[in-house]
């Protein structure tokens, strides 16, 4: 693993967290009940906090005078390396929960590994805090999957459609590129083939309990990790970055 790859791994962790945190925060004030507004906001706050930790670490490592905000607000969509799933629009509550469910199952396994590895103590430190948060996100999403799947006919159909739609974005989790391979070889990142089994087991068990069908693998979307995104990300970033880019000299 080169220094550049090591840095890229940390940035990717930050990008995943920020993009999903940004998406989720849009639910605040618009959830199906007040209690759920508060729950989704907590999840968003956890993710934004994780992003800040990873960015701050990345900024210190690259040592070019940038900080967390420069990494968040002054990189283009080409430079963001988050998984495509996370930038997909919120859609209805079922879409949001399915996106959360797929990602949390992945992020939890990945983060548990990161918290145990001995290659990068600072990453392990951030991961140790994050893993508790991700465990909760997973439980929250998994409970909702069961309620929606085994709820009414309408909710079952809706959430099954969300699963079928978003499924094609899950392959990217396990599709290792050079950076992933180098990270795994160095012992910083988990072996994605092994993780895939754990992920499948988690997801399939919950879907079965929810009386939902796990789709066949089929064609999977890819490109996020290489900076080739869906159309949605640049809109999201345009909105998110508008102030710092309009007033580049200002501090807030």
């Amino acid at each position, binding site marked *: 693993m080169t220094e550049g790859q090591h840095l890229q791994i940390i940035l990717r962790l930050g990008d995943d967290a920020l993009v999903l945190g940004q998406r989720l925060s849009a639910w605040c*004030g618009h959830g199906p009940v007040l209690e759920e507004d*508060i729950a989704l906001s907590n999840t968003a706050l956890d993710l934004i906090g994780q992003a800040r930790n990873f960015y701050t670490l990345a900024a210190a490592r690259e040592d070019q005078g940038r900080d967390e905000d420069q990494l968040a607000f002054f990189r283009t969509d080409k430079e963001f390396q988050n998984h495509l799933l996370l930038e997909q629009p919120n859609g209805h509550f079922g879409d949001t929960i399915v996106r959360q469910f797929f990602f949390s199952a992945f992020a939890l396994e990945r983060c548990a590994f990161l918290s145990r590895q001995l290659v990068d103590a600072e990453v392990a430190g951030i991961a140790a805090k994050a893993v508790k948060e991700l465990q909760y996100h997973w439980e929250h999403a998994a409970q909702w999957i069961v309620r929606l799947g085994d709820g009414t006919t309408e909710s079952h159909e809706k959430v099954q459609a969300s699963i079928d739609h978003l499924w094609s974005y899950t392959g990217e989790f396990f599709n290792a590129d050079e950076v992933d391979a180098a990270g795994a070889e160095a012992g910083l990142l988990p072996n994605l083939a092994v993780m895939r089994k754990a992920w499948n087991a988690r997801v399939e068990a919950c879907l079965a309990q929810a009386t939902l069908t796990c789709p066949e693998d089929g064609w999977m979307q890819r490109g996020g990790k290489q900076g080739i995104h869906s159309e949605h990300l640049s809109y999201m970033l345009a909105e998110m970055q508008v102030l710092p880019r309009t007033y580049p000299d200002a501090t807030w």
Partner: protein
Amino acid sequence: MSPVEMNLEARFDAYVAEEKKIEPKDWMPDAYRKTLIRQISQHAHSEIVGMLPEGNWISRAPSLKRKAILLAKVQDEAGHGLYLYSAAETLGVTREQMLDDLHTGKAKYSSIFNYPTLTWADMGAVGWLVDGAAIMNQVPLCKCSYGPYARAMVRVCKEESFHQRQGFQVMLNLAQGTPEQKAMAQDALNRWWWPSLMMFGPNDSDSPHSAQSMKWNIKRFSNDELRQRFVDMTVPQAELLGLTIPDSDLRWNEERGHYDFGEIQWEEFYNVIKGNGPCNKERLAARVKAHEDGAWVREAANAYAQKQQAKKTNATTHAA
């Protein structure tokens, strides 16, 4: 009113006059219950409608720290709405009924949230002025005569204290920032000052419910008293920021020991209440949409809970 009820009412009045708390199952006059339901549900509605103008800027907050702070603050407002709905529910009204009243326009909420948030500086002005005015109104409610309302307000006030401080900090950063930022801060103050003063309600001479509410210890200070207190507190803060309050009549009155200030445009106030404010329709539409879009989710959770309950019952019947 029967002699028994008259006796109860006299005992109630004496009890409240001694600064004692009324609890949900205690006897209370009908009008007291109705006043509380109206006031607490309006207050709850204001919290959740109030999430919208600020929620508007979460996606565009200019730093990650500001994004987290603003999200936490708007989330707190959801919590406050929830505490307040719960307090009202102890009086025998359901949250569903209260939401219905909000969505059909039967219930009111604070008019301030019908003004638009146009720039980032509005996040500062709302925190500093709107939350500042709200705190002024809310602190006395921690001692109001109805126990569940008073307890909810204690929790709300504890959490609110960071809201006003973060708003002032946003303003301070802008006021000390680039010329564009300072102009942004002044513009926000210009737009939010008068609506903030209107938050205290009509002048005492035009405030129909006040006297009875004061007697019941639901209201502790008059609208004009609280408004004066707010002006006296805020003027020096504006000076510290180096911003100008948009009122040419504003000056210190040595004799009164208070600031004198200009006449409020009550015509605007009553028009915004009537629904003619710049954002009344959007705000209400957003709440209705969230509720309607969420209906299938709420139903699914109910259906699932019922199935689980039925399974449990079945299991116990079989076991027996």
